[in-house]
């Protein structure tokens, strides 16, 4: 039907004197790049990303600290010998150590001497303690192979038979508590992350709908010039990818700087009461390379999540617009 050709539309060469090539700016995005809504969304995403990265960093820090505690505690077991009338304490300590070392999985045994025991009790009983005057239990510390631990039950039974005053503490209670604490912390962290991500997805859904209704005239024009839904969705997706990359980049960078600054503060204030207390509670503030990779991954996940959410929302909204537009009872004007 259409016989019109590009050549026919060309102005006559004679009539048009040769003009210098017109300068044209690079194609502007179909959706206006920035507006107040977009800037507010950048800030919201930045805050969400910051919170997500902070949670991730805190969880990984607590996990690392708990696992280091766990490893330290589970590397050793303690044999405690209570003093009793007629018991040769030194002989009992040596016997207990030798007995423990006879088990496969033990590495070395150290008898805590009088000086070390005094130091241990010093906070409670004061300095210059004479242990011979007090019925103080004595300790033997046995280092074990964590990967191939000895048979604690057999060791406990043998100690009970050979030295009735001895008590074996394999630190399992503490290890179990630490493991459960670490698990709880990780679960709480995951819960917070899920909440943060859910809040972000909802925010993006509202923002996308807002952007769609704010740019409804653009969607209409695209529709009339024959744009497919996927094209319109792609344009919105690009728009939101840029917004989310800016927001999540800023939030993640801020979180990374917070960890860097905290680590720097801790290294500068080593052996001060504040730093010691912070270390005891949270471990070291360093999140390590893995932590920074995690922060980067969080940034990408947020950007991806935002983009996918925007795309799905746009496609659904465009379908709704199409349905309303094609229904004569719901639409007004062209």
């Amino acid at each position: 039907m259409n016989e019109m050709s590009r050549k026919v539309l060309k102005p006559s060469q004679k009539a048009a004197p040769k003009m210098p090539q017109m300068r044209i700016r690079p194609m502007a995005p179909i959706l206006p790049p920035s507006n107040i809504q977009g800037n507010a969304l950048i800030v919201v995403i930045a805050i969400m990303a910051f919170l997500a990265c902070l949670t991730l960093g805190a969880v990984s820090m607590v996990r690392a600290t708990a696992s280091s505690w766990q490893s330290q505690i589970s590397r050793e077991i303690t044999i405690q010998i209570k003093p009793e009338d007629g018991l040769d304490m030194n002989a009992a300590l040596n016997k207990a150590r030798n007995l423990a070392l006879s088990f496969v999985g033990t590495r070395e045994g150290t008898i805590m001497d009088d000086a070390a025991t005094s130091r241990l009790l010093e906070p409670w009983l004061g300095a210059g303690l004479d242990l011979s005057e007090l019925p103080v239990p004595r300790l033997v510390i046995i280092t074990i192979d964590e990967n191939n631990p000895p048979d604690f039950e057999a060791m406990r039974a043998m100690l009970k038979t050979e030295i009735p005053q001895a008590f074996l503490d394999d630190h399992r209670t503490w290890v179990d508590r630490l493991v459960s604490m670490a698990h709880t912390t990780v679960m709480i962290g995951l819960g917070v992350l899920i909440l943060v991500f859910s809040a972000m997805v909802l925010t993006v859904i509202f923002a996308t709908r807002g952007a769609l209704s704010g740019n409804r005239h653009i969607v209409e024009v695209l529709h009339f010039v024959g744009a497919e839904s996927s094209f319109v969705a792609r344009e919105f997706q690009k728009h939101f990818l840029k917004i989310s990359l800016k927001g999540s980049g800023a939030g993640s960078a801020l979180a990374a700087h917070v960890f860097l600054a905290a680590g720097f503060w801790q290294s500068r204030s080593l052996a001060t009461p504040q730093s010691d207390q912070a270390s005891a509670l949270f471990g070291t503030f360093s999140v390590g390379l893995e932590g920074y990779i995690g922060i980067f991954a969080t940034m990408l996940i947020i950007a991806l999540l935002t983009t996918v959410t925007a795309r799905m929302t746009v496609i659904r909204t465009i379908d709704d617009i199409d349905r309303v537009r094609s229904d004569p009872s719901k639409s007004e004007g062209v």
Partner: protein
Amino acid sequence: MGPEILRDMTFDIPKGSFQFLTGPSGAGKTTLLRLLLMSLQPTRGHIRMFSRDVSRIPRSELPLLRRRVGIVFQDFRLLDHLTTYENVALPLRVRGKEESAYRNDVIELLKWVGLGERINVLPPILSGGEKQRAAIARALMDQPEILLADEPTGNVDPPMAKRLLNLFLELNRLGTAVVIATHDFGLMDQVDARRMILTEGRLDVYE
């Protein structure tokens, strides 16, 4: 369901034809144009476009058929953040074409409609006539088989209306079927063309 706006009408738009669609306000001109653009589904009756029953075309395929129809609105519907060039290039951009493939065509078309010097100007700076010509250029950009124009001269003075009419006639001479919805009898009197008159939802065609 709302009131029935159009009823009992049978007509065709022959290839390469030129016609005016007229009638009082509220007669259903815009609705008829929307039906021709496949942007609205009729509650009953059949519309065949390009030898296909519109009601049987899947929704995903409609944009592809809509590309064969150009539309010009009375209120132009240019995007204010895009330049004249970018607005006119929009139909090709949504088809996924590379800019280098159509840059010269867009510039030539803009010169053809008299906007060669306004390529880099944003719509708010353009006059009413310039906006209308930019909207016409956008509708023509991908060489539609039918051009639908809704009150194209509603916002321009008589000399500009005459220029726009000449543009439509020139386009029709090149093979595009043209439907101009208008109230303007002065405009219609300038051309001896088919008249489709809508009155209270009914259509009378005067060849």
